[in-house]
């Protein structure tokens, strides 16, 4: 033992390398899961939005479209096979998206347990700041949305109605429409940052593309949100139904 003096005896070499623990899932891998699952959900949303616009072709067309989704692939496969494949993929994507989000959220919490007394953002946008709580709102909304229009249990028309009736009944109610509008705006912000972020995460952004990617994300988010907002607003204002 070498003699030592001074207040503290333990030698802590601040530079010592910690032994790596068992390989965890890397934070970048989690982000990639988030990006890929997000892309699947975005593609679904595009189809969903286009389908929604069929409300303007009238009751028959809309109900027919709804029926078609359930019969794609018949008679090669039994009824609703394709629909369930879509549902399983979506469910898996949602689960993966939430898992990655929660996991990164917890990592971020662990990474800064003590917050700043004063903190001002320099660059972050409203969209990027609200990803996490916005995501929670969207998850809650999706549950409500399925109960409302898919299952019909939360719909004024009840479970026995046709899809068209449920839509018209729901959006004739200003309160229900308001809930949808809030959720869709949240979706818009979520997409605005999500699309840019996915491009970064998948390593497809660079200095030259950065502006384009950001512009695309904004335009895409606006178009999709608008596309989703048109039917409920039209119904509420009496243009349809």
């Amino acid at each position, binding site marked *: 033992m*070498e003699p030592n003096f001074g207040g503290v005896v333990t030698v802590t070499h601040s*530079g010592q390398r910690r032994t790596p623990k068992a390989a965890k899932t890397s934070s970048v891998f989690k982000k990639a899961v988030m990006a890929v699952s997000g892309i699947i959900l975005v593609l679904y949303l595009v189809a969903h939005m286009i389908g929604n616009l069929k409300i303007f072709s009238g009751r028959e067309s809309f109900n027919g479209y709804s029926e078609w989704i359930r019969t794609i692939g018949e008679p090669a496969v039994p009824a609703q096979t394709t629909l369930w494949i879509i549902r399983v993929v979506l469910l898996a994507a949602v689960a993966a998206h939430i898992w990655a989000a929660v996991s990164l959220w917890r990592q971020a919490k662990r990474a800064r347990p003590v917050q700043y007394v004063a903190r001002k953002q320099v660059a972050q946008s409203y969209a990027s700041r609200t990803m996490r709580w916005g995501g929670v709102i969207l998850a809650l909304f999706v549950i409500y949305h399925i109960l409302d229009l898919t299952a019909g249990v939360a719909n004024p028309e009840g479970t026995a109605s046709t899809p068209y009736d449920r839509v018209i009944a729901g959006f004739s109610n200003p309160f229900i429409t308001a809930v949808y509008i809030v959720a869709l705006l949240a979706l818009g912000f979520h997409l605005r940052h999500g699309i840019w972020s996915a491009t970064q995460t998948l390593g497809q952004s660079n200095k030259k593309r950065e502006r384009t990617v950001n512009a695309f994300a904004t335009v895409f988010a606006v178009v999709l949100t608008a596309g989703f907002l048109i039917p409920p607003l039209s119904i509420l204002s009496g243009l349809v139904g």
Partner: protein
Amino acid sequence: MALELFTLGDPIADTSAPRDVPIGERWSERRFRAKLVNPANRRKLTVIVVGTGLAGGSAAATLGEAGYKVKSFWYQDSPRRAHSVAAQGGINAAKNYRNDGDSVHRLFYDTVKGGDFRAREDNVHRLAEVSVNIIDQCVAQGVPFAREYGGLLDNRSFGGTQVSRTFYARGQTGQQLLYGAYQALERQMAAGTVEQFARTEMLDLIVVDGRARGIVARNLITGEISTHFADAVVLATGGYSNVFYLSTNAKGSNATAIWRAHKRGALFANPCYTQIHPTCIPVHGEYQSKLTLMSESLRNDGRVWVPKERGDTRDPRDIPEEERDYYLERIYPAFGNLVPRDIASRQAKNVCDEGRGVGPEGKGVYLDFAEAMQRLGRPAIEAKYGNLFDMYAQITGEDPYEVPMRIYPAVHYTMGGLWVDYDLQSNIPGLFVIGEANFSDHGANRLGASALMQGLADGYFVLPNTISHYLSSGPFDKVDPQHPAAVEALEGVRAQTERLLSINGNRTTASFHRELGRLMFDLCGMERSEESLRKALDRIPEIRQEFWTNVKVPGELGRFNQSLEHAGRVADFIELAELMCVDALHRNESCGGHFRAESQTPEGEALRDDENYAYVAAWEWTPEGAPPVLHKEDLEFEYVHLAQRSYK
């Protein structure tokens, strides 16, 4: 020379260089004659390396790669912060990629001449030889040097040389080279060959039976003072410009490691050789903590002037052409604004001393780009100097595109340092000194882009070869931590630190440091005279006396205590300042960065006295009260003939 100043000891000489072969073969011959250490035995040999700049970082990494057990110490939080990081300009190498007549011999010649014939030829020649290997090594590490469109390395001419031999990475060459060494060092740390001691400051050298065997160091976070042992100790702790308080060095740069080694018997060579850089941003107030250098390249297009009249406080733009004195163009029509650093600095001081200086306190001269802007247009100036202009604007709050810049010289580099032989070994066996910390390669004046070259040459290529010769006679007997020499060193450090904390006087460490710095800059700065140096030598002991009775150092020993760190460093600067003045006073000639008012040509140029002063002044420490002992190493010039510099 007055006898009370110093006493004359035995002459010394370098005996490591094989002088029996021609200079071009000496380095390979030295490597051949050096004894080697069997790779299997290397892990039984421990080497302490203090400092992680270009020299220390590259040495520790290379010794680790070779298989030695290395212990690396640095005072900052990371090895990447060493002040080599701040070097801007570039690194010289005799690659002759431009086919412009460069060669190892020319780089050797330029360096000896630039050093005003006060460097050892053997060392300088070796430096020029290994310069080419440095570039290869750095490129292999991924250092992003500037390149041409064909993918080859770009070169530029730097510091007035006639060949383009400077490699660079924009204005951040030092940073990029340091990161290369730092990454190699981190790689060895991961591999386990280099043990790291971050935020640990060396406070004494342990000499056992005449050999350097370890150090006493303080862990700056816990305050713990402990001993560390090894078979050899390497100091790579940089220069001592912070003696002047205001310099371009980092705030933490200090002389403590070399000074404490000096007090353990290592000779300190040429302490008075300091380099003062002409283009720095001037001081703007009492509270100023640091000077910032701007690249010398500014003098390529900027014109230096002051008003002809003293005390002219008009806006520089309102001073008509005929009332301006473009003094460098006037005195040196051939070289004009491009005269060497020491001349440009001294003339700036002269005009300011005449009362014609500009800006607050009259310590500044104008560097004017108005003419260049007219000739080349603003976009061209922006492209060439944009980052420098931005930096200037940021620090001063003035727009240099509109108002002439103000510049003033600042201490930048110290050529002096611990005396070493051709093996870079000091007179204490087992103590090696590399980089700016030694005195070896630059003589009395360092050429631009040569500091980085020397640091990496020493660390990557020279030391790892020469230290093996010393280590081949090891491993030496293990040092018992209770050995009287170790205990004495440890307790000495502890006693000094406790004493600093107990004085509890009325003045801060910084106020002493400022006082010392101002005194040194005024009396032992760009121009020294017997009168000024005697004045300094009268005053410094008083400062030291007051420091040790009236300094106030708050905090505790056993904790992170930056005030305590600073106090210990200033205590050493005060002692070193005295030796610098003694050295400057004894050297009654002007050479390179050392200008004695008594020794100048009728035109006011530096006048060397080769007859009496063509030697290295290596100083031996003596306990307080006794004058230091001077050992002379005579310099012989076999290959470069002594000549007077002239830039007229």
